[in-house]
Every structure is written in C-alpha cells, then in structure tokens.
C-alpha cells in the first residue's frame, strides 16, 4: 500500500531521516516504534505531506507519487491523526468533520447531508459518536474517534496514528484497539507510531523499529518479543526492572501527614483523611488507578492546592507547613517533579537556561542585587551544569524547552529539582511519555538520591515502576489509603485488587 | 525607495491589467503655481456634516468652480483657484494638517471652527507670509482674518418668529455644548421672543459639556420631548447633530388638521427640508458667503487681517424662507421679522451679544 524509499530529511545539522525504507502492507496494522527523536514521526509526516523529503520517493500502491502537501496525501487516501487533536471545540462533530471537506458549497448545507454519512460510518465501526454533539463536551477518547472519522470521511484507506494512546486511559486503549481491528477487517491499513512495547505486541501485525533516524529492524510481530524490540530501540540490553539495594540509611521521619483531606469545589473529598509518614532515605510509592486523588495529594503537599480546600496537618521535620505556600515549601527543601511537565513543570516557550531556574529564579545563583536582577552568565552556567549532569540533549541552553523531546524535557526537570538538594522529593509519573533510555536514567537517579538520605514520595500509574522503585507501597483508592504492601513480597495481582476495589 | 516603488509598480501592474483603467488626473494639471492655492482644514465633523462644515465647503467649492458641491450654480463667479481640503478626524491632526498646506506654500489656509483658533495662531506665527482665516474664532495676528458671525442677530429674528407662532406662550431652546458661543444664540433668541411677547417663557437645555454634545441626537430628542411636555411648541436648536433629535421629537408630536402642532427651528445651514412641515425656519449662518469673500479678497490681493464680522447687514446671518416653510409662517410675522431686520441693520435695535465682554 505505502512504501517509503530511501527517504532522507535533514533539519539543519540534524539528520532526522537517513535513507529510511518502510513498507506497509495493505490491510495490516503496522507499528513504527522507536525512542523519542528516532525519526518515526518525521517519516510519517513526510508520507502525509507535512514535510517534503530532501531525497527519496514515496510509492502508493506501487506507483511513485509526489506528495507536497497534506491535501495530496488525502487525495490519495492517506489520513493522519495527530497526537494533539485538531478540532474546533465549540463546533459539533459533524461540523468539525465537514470543515475543510465540504461536500456542498455552503457549510450549513454540507453539515446536514454529512450527518447521515457520519452516522453510517460511525455505526459500521462501532464508534458510537453522535454527529450533533459539541466537541468540547466529548471525552478525550471520543475526540480521538472524531479524528478517526474525519480521516475516514475523506475516504482514507490508510490511517497514520501518531502516539494515539498517549491520551487514553487503559480502558479506552482496549476499546480503541478493538476499533483498529475492526478497521483492519474492513480492509483499511493502519500505521501506528508509538514507543510503548506492550501496545506494539498487542495490536500490530508488523513492526518497523527506528533509531537515530534509521530503520534498524523490520519484524513480524508474532516472531518477536519485548526484549528484542527494546534492544533494537536502544541498542543495548535494557533493565526493565530496577536493581536496587534495599534502603540502608533509614533516617528520621521527614514528612508526616495526618488526616489530610482535599476537597474539590463541589465539596467532594478528593483526598480523604489520609495519614502516612515518609522517612529520610526511603522511597514511598503511591500506587493507584489514575484519578483516585494522587494529583490532589501531591498538589496539597507541594503547596499548590488552594489553601481553603485543604484540611489536616502536614509536617516537615518538626515544622507544621500546612499553611505554607509553594515558595516557602521549596525553601524548606521540598522539591517537586510534577506529573504533567507541559502543564506544570516547564515554560515551553522559554529557553533551557530560563527553565533551569524556575522556582529558584529569585535567589542565588540566578539573581543578585537583592533578588531583583538576573545574573545571565550564572544562569547559563547553572543550566549547563544540569544539562551536563543529567545528559539533556541537545545540550544547548538557548533552545526553547518546546524543542526538546519528552525524555529530555523530563531530565531537565529532574535535574533542576535534584539541584535543590531536597530533603523531600515529591515525584509524580516521572517516566510518563519518556523513552526507555531516559526511564532507566531517571530511575537510577531517584535511587541515588534516596541513598543520599532524601525522603522520596513517588506516585506512578505503572505498578511495575512503583513496586520496583519503592521501599514501601501505599495503595490509594478513592482518595483513601486502601493499604500498605511490601513491594518485594506482593504480587501485581494483589496490588491490582487493592487499586481497583480498595480492599 | 526607488526599488520599492519599482516593485510596487510591478505588483500593481499585474493587479491592474484586468481593471484596465486610465488614471484620471483632471485637477492635478491645475496645480500650477500661477494660481492662488487655497487649503481648508475642516473640523472633526468633516465636510459632509450638513451643517457648519458643509457650509464652509460650499463656500470654497463655489469659489473654485462657481457651483455648489451638488453641481448647481452658486450665483458667483469661479475664482480660478487651486483648492485642497483636509478632514483631520482627530484633534492631534489639525495642526499638522494646517502645516501641510503651509509647508507647500499655500496662499490662503482656512481653519473651520473655534477649536482651531489656537492652532491657526501657532501655525500663522511660523508662516507670517501666508494668509490664514479662522471661521468662528478670533486671532490678532497680522496675517490672520477672523470670520465672526452675529449669531445673536439671526437668533433674535427667529426668536421673534417663534414667539409669534407659539400658541402656548412657551418656547424652547436646545443648545449643544454649554459654551459662550451658544449662549450668544440663546440670548438673542430670548430677546427676540420678548420683543413681541414680554411674558413668554423660554425653556433652555444643553446636551452636554464636552465635544460629544454636538453628536448625540438621542439625548437631543429626549430633551426636546421634555420641553414639549412642559408646554413648549416651538424649539430652536443650536446643537449640531444632536439638534436632529428635536426634529424627530416635533414630528412625533404629530399634526392636527394637516398642520403640525409643534415646530422646530434649524440652525447654521438651511434645514427646512429635513422634516418638511415641521421646520418653522432655520437660523442660517452664511459661512459660505464669508469663506467665498475671504478667498475673493486673497485672489484680488485685498486680504485684510483682523476681525470680519458677518451680521444681518453683511448677509452673514438670517432666517431661511423657501417652499418648505412658506405656508407655516404667517405673512404678518414675516413682515414683522423683516421690519426688525431693518431696524437691527440700521442700529435702531441692539441685540445683546452674550460673548461681548
């Protein structure tokens, strides 16, 4: 169906695609896997006409095609669903789908005739999308289906999906995969770009592995396994489980939480009378299905929650810090790696130097003259130190944070927070959306920090991550601590039951 | 810059080929230095305000072409001048607009409206060899002619007409911005009314204290309706655009047996045709005459600085009579007004000037 031949694409000094050859068979689900920055999205954007290749050719059904813009790709039956949806929130599903592909001259006219078509398409695949619903009112999973419909409505025979599951809950992922299988049965071809091994194994027929802009493997999914794919991706054997010594230098209680509650604006308790301790030199994991109060708990501990919504007591050492603001808590040595690095952790438009001082921008070494003036050379040195110590690439302090891959963005945040020499580290989803190499790096750093005597509170949706990193695991369910388990002794099933049922 | 214009030419050429028009340059040929160049800077209202600025525009157009802006003859000869005008649109542009003419060595620069008086003074100081004229303002510089109107004299006559026409013995006055110039209208109006009916009641209202008072017909109508409610049946407006609200108000009051029950008196330009049947007359201020005359002076080399007063005697103010209002005014009222006019010109009646110190 689709073949990329010797595609080369250069962005300035960076060779994003180096003689890439990818062949996608008609009627299959084809996964393209690789670390962030391996060039998989670039290759597919070339196929969709977002970029034009410097050299090489694109063949569709065996004939060479010139695809200079997305409309060329669409005309040839190629659709693409991006990681960030391109939908107009206040408009209806049908309007969104018709937008840019109006069958009639007037938009309103097109919408009414389109509605029926959309309903039919949606029914055939079991998408259950109401054409008249307003997009803003739909869940993320449903919005993604609208994107699918948009492509199918334009008669796409081949759909390229860029990291489609990044925004979905595990349940939605299952439903989504069922839809993809249904499409395959209808004879459509699907290309799915991902870096999650488990998904590749679960859904695809064939895999292309990319690394550093090159294709390093073409495999049939049935004939491979996670370890092999991981090795191809990072070019070395990866420790999927962390080897770590047990906590040795267990110190005094650093964080003491008593009867902490956080209420939402509607009065419902998101965190409900939670009490626990974290001691110096240990990692305490909080396991739980997302949305069970982890976010609110971390925000309450870091001082980001609105004070009026928080009750109970938080003590750091001997000090009651329940009423302290975020800055005061930072000054007492609480560092925080937030769960959403784009929303909380980074100023994406700012350069790396400026991002490296967020939270310490008003004191040495960033500021001088009473904390009024910024010391630019010192900030750049500070950033360069973090970048060097945490292997942030590319190592250029003048780049905007936006230009970095997810893993490198996360390493920058981790580096910045570690640089505080914290007594308590709050860390949430530290490896979400991060490639395997970076995951391993961050895990090792966390353990090193623990061994220096820092108290670490770790929240993660990955049971694997929580159990392998933590010395103790608390399971949170509906805002309450459902129980504490020993990560060495408990099985995944046991923890899973606590997470889903609360007992 | 040359390269820029070249590029522009190229771009425009491409755009223009389908349009295929030739450039009309009928007036540029007239830009020859032998002619007298006249520049006029209008007030914020712009030359199409159907009132004060429009009258000034009519005057200069008449001087340029011998015709009114609409195209019919103005009854005076064309003066072979080059005429350019600017509508500044905001107060900051007035001075540069005037300087634009001065920089180009125009022979006569006319500023319209009292607000331009200080600006004319400033610019005229920098260009002592250029003639300036200011309408409605006063300057004592040796190269500035101040064109002043005896609005109180015209107002006296329409006051007389109003008092003779009123059946209730109550008449109204609607002013725009509360300033001395408009007090002059009010005072003359009142005196004229009392000259025939000493017991007449004059209700007066002003729309506001800022520039916006000239341009608020809504409030003008409200005030006029209030005056009607108090019994006034003739209302004289001196309120620019806001006055048009009073026209609506009297129309709303309606007619009995085909004759309007309430009347309005227009101002500055002849406004009789605005609401035919409801406009008793208009107190016209012949800005066009004054402007034409000063242009003529410059053309003839007889420009004189100082104050040029236009009263009844110079045909600078008056009341309008035409087919729209000839049936509204009683013949004896007209006779009485004409009589008063002669007496004022002869100095037998002196109308108080509210602005005189």
């Amino acid at each position, binding site marked *: 169906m689709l073949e990329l031949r010797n595609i080369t694409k250069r962005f*300035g000094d*960076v060779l994003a695609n180096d003689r890439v050859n990818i062949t996608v068979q008609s009627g299959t689900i084809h996964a393209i896997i690789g670390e962030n920055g391996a060039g998989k999205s670039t290759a597919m954007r070339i196929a969709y006409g977002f970029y034009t290749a410097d050299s090489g050719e694109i063949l569709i059904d065996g004939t060479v095609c010139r695809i200079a813009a997305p409309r060329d790709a669409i005309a040839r039956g190629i659709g693409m669903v*991006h990681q960030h949806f*391109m*939908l*107009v*929130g*206040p408009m209806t599903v049908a309007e969104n789908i018709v937008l840019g592909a109006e069958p009639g001259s007037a938009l309103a006219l097109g919408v009414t005739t389109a509605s029926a078509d959309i309903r039919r398409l949606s029914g055939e695949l079991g998408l259950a999308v109401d054409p008249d619903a307003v997009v*803003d009112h739909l869940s993320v999973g449903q919005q993604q289906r609208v994107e699918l419909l948009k492509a199918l409505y334009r008669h796409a025979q081949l759909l390229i999906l860029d990291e489609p599951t990044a925004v979905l809950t595990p349940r939605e992922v299952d439903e989504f995969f069922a839809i993809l299988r249904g499409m395959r049965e209808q004879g459509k071809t699907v290309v799915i770009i991902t870096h999650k091994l488990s998904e590749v194994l679960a859904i695809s027929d064939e895999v292309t592995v990319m690394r550093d802009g090159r294709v390093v493997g073409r495999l049939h999914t049935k004939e491979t396994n996670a370890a092999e794919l991981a090795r191809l991706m990072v070019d070395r054997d990866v420790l999927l489980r962390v080897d770590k010594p047990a906590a040795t230098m267990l110190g005094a209680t650093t964080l003491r939480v008593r009867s902490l509650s956080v209420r939402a604006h509607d009065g419902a308790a998101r965190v409900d009378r939670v009490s626990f301790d974290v001691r110096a030199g240990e990692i305490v994991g909080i396991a739980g299905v997302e949305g069970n109060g982890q976010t609110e708990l971390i925000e309450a501990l*870091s001082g*980001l929650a609105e004070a009026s919504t928080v009750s109970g007591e938080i003590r750091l050492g001997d000090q009651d810090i329940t009423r302290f603001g*975020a*800055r005061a808590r930072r000054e007492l040595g609480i560092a925080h790696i937030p769960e959403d690095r784009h929303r*909380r*952790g*980074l*100023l994406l*438009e*700012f*350069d790396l130097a400026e991002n490296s001082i*967020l*939270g310490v*921008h008003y004191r040495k070494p*960033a500021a001088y003259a009473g904390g*009024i*003036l*910024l010391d630019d050379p010192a900030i750049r040195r500070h950033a360069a130190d973090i970048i060097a110590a945490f292997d942030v690439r*590319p190592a*250029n302090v*003048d780049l905007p944070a936006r*230009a970095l891959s997810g893993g490198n963005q996360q390493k920058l945040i981790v580096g910045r927070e570690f640089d505080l020499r914290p007594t308590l580290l709050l860390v949430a989803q530290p490896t979400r959306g991060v490639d395997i190499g970076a995951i391993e790096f961050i895990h090792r750093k966390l353990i090193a920090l623990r061994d220096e005597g820092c108290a670490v509170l770790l929240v993660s949706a990955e049971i694997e991550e929580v159990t392998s990193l933590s010395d103790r695991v608390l399971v949170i369910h509906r805002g309450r601590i459902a129980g504490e388990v020993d990560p060495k002794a408990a099985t995944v099933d046991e923890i899973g039951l606590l997470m889903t049922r609360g007992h | 810059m040359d390269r820029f214009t070249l590029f*522009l*030419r190229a*771009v*425009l050429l491409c*755009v223009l080929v389908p*349009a295929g028009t030739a*450039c009309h340059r*009928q007036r540029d040929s007239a830009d020859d230095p032998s002619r007298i160049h006249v*520049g006029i800077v209008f007030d914020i209202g712009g030359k199409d305000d159907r009132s004060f600025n429009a009258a000034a525009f009519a005057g200069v157009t008449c001087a340029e072409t011998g015709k009114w802006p609409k195209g019919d003859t103005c009854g005076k000869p064309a003066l072979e001048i080059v005429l350019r*005008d*600017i*509508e500044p*649109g*905001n*107060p*900051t*542009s007035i*001075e540069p*607009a005037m300087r*634009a*003419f001065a920089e180009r060595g125009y022979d006569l620069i006319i500023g319209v409206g*009292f*607000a331009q008086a200080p600006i004319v003074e*400033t610019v005229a100081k*920098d260009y002592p060899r250029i003639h300036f004229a200011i309408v409605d303002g006063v300057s004592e510089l040796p190269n500035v002619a101040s064109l002043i109107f005896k609005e109180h004299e015209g107002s006296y006559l329409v006051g007389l007409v109003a008092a003779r026409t009123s059946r209730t013995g109550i008449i109204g006055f609607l002013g725009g911005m509360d300033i*001395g110039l408009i007090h002059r209208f009010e005072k003359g109006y009142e005196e004229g009314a009392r000259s025939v009916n000493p017991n007449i009641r004059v209700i007066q209202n002003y729309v506001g*204290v*800022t*520039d916006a008072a000239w341009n608020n017909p809504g409030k003008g109508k409200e005030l006029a309706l209030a005056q009607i409610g108090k019994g006034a049946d003739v209302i004289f407006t001196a309120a620019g655009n806001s006055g048009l609200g009073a026209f609506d108000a009297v129309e709303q009051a309606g007619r009995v047996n085909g004759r309007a029950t309430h009347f309005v008196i227009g101002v500055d330009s002849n406004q009789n045709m605005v609401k035919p049947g409801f406009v008793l007359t208009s107190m016209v201020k012949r800005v066009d005459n004054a402007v034409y005359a000063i242009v003529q002076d410059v053309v003839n080399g007889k420009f004189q600085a100082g104050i040029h007063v236009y009263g009844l005697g110079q045909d600078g103010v008056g009341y309008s009579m035409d087919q729209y209002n000839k049936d509204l005014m009683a013949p004896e009222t007209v006779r009485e007004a004409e009589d008063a006019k002669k007496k004022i010109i002869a100095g037998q009646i002196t109308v108080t000037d509210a602005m005189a110190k």
Partner: protein
Amino acid sequence: MILDDRARSAPTRSPFRHYSDGLLGELIFPLIAVLAAFVVGGVMVLVVGDDPIQTYRLLLGSALSWPDGIGYTLFYATPLIFTGLAVLVAFRGGLLNIGAEGQLYVAAFATAWAGITFANLSAWALLPLCFLAAILAGAVWGAIPGVLKARFGSHEVITTIMLNFVAVALVGYFTQYHYKAPGDPIMQTTMIGGGAHIARLGRFIPGFPERIPLNLSFVFALIACLLVHLFLWRTTWGYEIRATGSNPQAAEYGGISIRKQMVLAMAVSGALAGMVGINEVLGYRYRHYDGFSANYGFTGIAVALLGRNHPVGVLFAAMLFGMMIRGGIFVDAFTNNVTKDLVDVLQGIVILFVAAEALFRGPFASHRLLKRSKI
C-alpha cells in the same frame, strides 16, 4: 521553521534570542503583512480613481522628508511607542490591556494637574513631579483592573474597556468644571508652569526647526524600550511576569504568585501608557486638551501585535504607524479622491494580515490556533 532552529545552536547570544523563532522568521510576516496591505491599498486607490504610485510616493515622501516629515513621523510614533510597550508588557504577562487609552488620559490630566498646581516650582522640582504624576496615575489606573482580576477574577478586557469610559468622563468633568480657563470654549485646562516644559529636539539638532513638536519624550520612549527589555528579560520581576503569561500553572509551581504578577504587569503597563502624558502635556501642548488622543491606546494594540510583542519590534511598528499618520494627512490633502481613510484601511489590513499570520505559517500554527480556540 521551529525545527530549523532546534538544529541551529547559536554559540553567541543575540539580543533577539527571546523570539521563539529566528530573527528572519519574526521579521518576514510583519513585512509580508505591510507589503500586502500596501498592495491592497494600492488597488483601492486605483478604484477611487487616483494613481497608486503617486499616492504612495506622496505618503512616503511626506513622511520621510527632512525635517518636517521625519520630525512629525517620530512625533506621532512617540505615544505609540509608549502604548505599544504598555500592551506588550501586559501581553507578556498573559493579560490583554485594552485600557491604555483610559490610562493615558488619566495620566495626561494628572501631568497637567501637577504642572498647573505646582507651576511656581523650578524646573528641577517640577519636571520630576510631573513625570511622577504621569507614571503614577497611569500605573494606578492600570493596576485597578489587575487588582479586580486578582481579587475577583473579573476579566481584564471588560474592566479595562469600562475604565476607559470612566477615565474619559472623569477627566472631561475636571477639565470642564475645575481646570478650564474661564470663558474658554475649548475643552482644555489652563497652561502648565514653564518649568515643566520639555525641550523640543529642534533645540539640539541644527537645521531642525523648533516648531516641530518632536521633543525629548521621543528620547524617553527609546529609553523606555531599552528599560522594558531589561525589565522583562533581566530582572526577576520580568521573569515572573513572563512566566505567568507563558504558563500560569508552571509559574505557580515555581513559587510565583500569579495574582501579584497580574497587578504588577498591569501597573507597569499603565505606567508606560501614562508616559504618553509626558509627550502630550510636557512636550507638545503644555496643557491637557480634552480628546487629544487619536486612539493611541487602541493603536498601541496593533503596534504591539505588529511588533511581535518585542520592544524593538514595537519601536519599528510605532514608526511605521507614525509614518502612516503623517503621510495620511498629505494623501488626504493632495490627492483628488483619496482621503485619510486610506491610512485607516492600510492599518486595518496590516493588523488583519498580522493576525492571520497563521495562515502563512502552515499546519503547525493553524494547529496551535485551533487548540487555542478550544480554551
């Protein structure tokens, strides 16, 4: 374009590095917008029956002639630099200051008030006092919407617009009833003390007549550009304002009080808008003249937009607008059919094209635009 820059690692730091893209990328769209506006404007000139080339020659020639053209162009640019900077600072803080118009009115009146009330002081005392009055009045008037937003969450677009009306009415009232010379039909205050006059540049530049109202305020405007740049990118306050504007949740995470930043950004914005009063009152009319502002506050929004919210960009955008105001007067006067409305049309098209820049930027920008429309 974005990826392009990712790859290019600039070893030295240029003053323009704060642009998200390269310098060229920042310049190209404003230039296209201006050029496109001129082409469309040229067609309109043709339609009304004048020669576009002549008209533009007149426009540019009169705006760049020495000394009057340059002098007036820069004189008109001066208030627009201040209001452009005002809009820029607020915008960098994530706020849309539509209230520069009101802020500059209040400030101009306050400047005149100080100049009239303390008219007998010497220049050394009076000038700083008048400056302070302008800056403080603007800052206070600007800070009000900031406080309202921080305290009650009222949207600054609404409150600043409303405060414009309040400012105009309030200043009009005081001018009419308390500070007007008795009997003066013009809505203006009495004159300020001679000590508060700022020198016109004609005094320092040979061959530049003093009748041209271009005064030291223009130099202050240039200094203000520099100071705004230093403030935003070289101080912790600027850092906090920009962080709040860029991503308030991340700013909060970094221990920044976003409420405080709202007030600070609006106060600084108002102070900059207020400096228009220095040019107008101390440098030009030597009194407060009611209705003096030719929509400087609103044009400032366009200036900031065209200047891509950077002080250097604002400087150039303000000069371009200054040229158009100056040239517009000549176009109005010395063409047969074209009126000054042409200049308004040109401005409108420039803004339209700048705002529609996403159309040129390709799929990435349009994607971001759509994302934004979801908020």
